[in-house]
């Protein structure tokens, strides 16, 4: 199954990965080959088989709703690329300017 260069560009944006022209060319070929390989699953009739997302049969593991200590602000910020002591700083979410 072949992916087009446009397919790969679209997936790149969904995956939040900036891809160069060379990246796009290479990945179009590589991903087409891998997708072709995994498509062998089509041989199997799985009409009546339920999906298995998880190997255990456990579902909805609950715990008591009790407050517990969590990271302090300095701990949470200790590896932040940019912060102001109480918040993470990021470039503008909307529009073109105001990058932090």
């Amino acid at each position, binding site marked *: 199954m072949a992916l087009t260069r446009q397919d790969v560009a679209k997936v790149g944006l969904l995956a939040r990965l*900036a891809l160069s022209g060379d990246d796009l060319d290479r990945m179009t070929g590589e991903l087409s080959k891998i997708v072709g390989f995994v498509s062998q699953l089509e041989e199997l009739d*799985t009409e009546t088989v339920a999906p298995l997302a998880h190997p255990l049969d456990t579902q909805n593991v609950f715990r008591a709703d009790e407050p517990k200590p969590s990271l302090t602000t300095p701990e949470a910020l200790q590896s932040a690329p940019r912060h102001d002591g109480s918040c993470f700083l990021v470039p503008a979410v909307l529009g073109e300017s105001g*990058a932090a």
Partner: protein
Amino acid sequence: MQPLELSAVDLVAAIHRGEVSAVQVAEAFLARIAKANGSINAFLHVDREAALARAADIDARRKAGKPLGALAGLPVAVKDALCTSDQPTTCASKMLAGFRPPYDAHVVAKLRQADAVLVGKTNMDEFAMGGSNENSAFGAVHNPWDLTRAPGGSSGGSAACVAADMAPAAIGSDTGGSIRQPAGLCGITGLKPTYGRVSRRGLVAFASSLDQIGPMTRSAADCALLMETIAGHDPGDATCLTDEVPRYTEMLEKPLTGLRIGRVAEHFGPGLDPEVAHGVEEAFAAFKAAGATIHDVELPHAKYGIATYYLVAPCEASSNLARYDGAHYGHRAEPGRGHRTSAGTTGEFESPLVEMYCRSRAEGFGPEVKRRIMLGTYALSAGYYDAFYAKALRVRRLIRQDYLDAFAEVDLIGGPVSPTPAFPLGEKTNDPLAMYLVDMYTVGTNLAGIGGISFPCGFTKGGLPIGFQLQGPALSEPLLLRAADRYQKLTDWHTRRPKLPA
């Protein structure tokens, strides 16, 4: 006494009896690391001062007659995928270069509580994605048996450091074979426990329904010792099993008389190296001589394992790795350097924030990680979800059912770990699909959520280790460890050591 030659079990006993101090043991292994790591690159970080201080503290407490943990004084190397609050945790990725987690992984905390001496963090394939350790952003690991060959992956550093006597024990993680395959290619013993047996809290997530932490040591008895410390319920991991942890070390003695081991004919098909096949058949013969019986079993969907795995794992990875966004921790691209992108130019991103995400991730992740994120994102995207992801989950159920059916007939399933012995560095780096196929015998264990162990069963004429794998039902660790231990009482493959340049 030469600490490097002792098993983990014997080291702990010798320290306990005062025959050797924890400091002497730590010094011996640190000296070995200083000598051998340059040519092997198994460690990304070695914390010499902290290890020695820790060992001195253990010696002082022992002299004062205070109680000590079950691993008191045992040096342990930890894969760099587990969070350590006092050492960097990079997952061998530029994305996390220099990252210091604000907390310890559950397993790391348990090792500290047991008074193990954490000597350092081991090299790996970036984010545990790979089967050769060549995907590390900090350089490949070299196989101690032949420095021109790969140690396997992704826990290649953990396997190589134990094989080269740089640590008596290491912690690895196994998503599709990442403990068992490098253990096999480096001639050591590695256990991939049942899914949920060991807490994953603080293990950097790759594919959460497949990831499992386990021990990598020289022998099954040493794996049993580590399991008693690292296994067990953790409320911080909702998928962690509540079942009581058995005394693995006390369950090794019983003979194998009557043990039923399954043999899958398809494991011996095309692609299996003849020397590996020979070593594996010899191991079956040894188990038979020890009282086990060998039975043909079928795993009819095993041939779809790789295709299933390379959908399920990348889909989960694409979701898990979305957290590396350059905002909270990890690499952030410098603003505005005009990078051509999938959308055209920088100006065409919908906002400066999205541009920062896209460029930080492009700069921080290596090629294989990007490939898997792309594959997973594609397989989960609108229009493809049912055809790829949901389809793979249905086949996953068929694969698990095969094991359940087989384990109605036999107690364990034996076979090769990998189709070939350790391959030359660089041989598969340009062919992602060829690299994926090295996992052909190991991914089923993870898809089914069961246990598996690999251990050496011979050597090629060229002197490379050959691995044997046993897979068992959920929570069969006592049996897996006992079968491997009984085999190791009858053979000496696991005692062989590579000759390294002095």
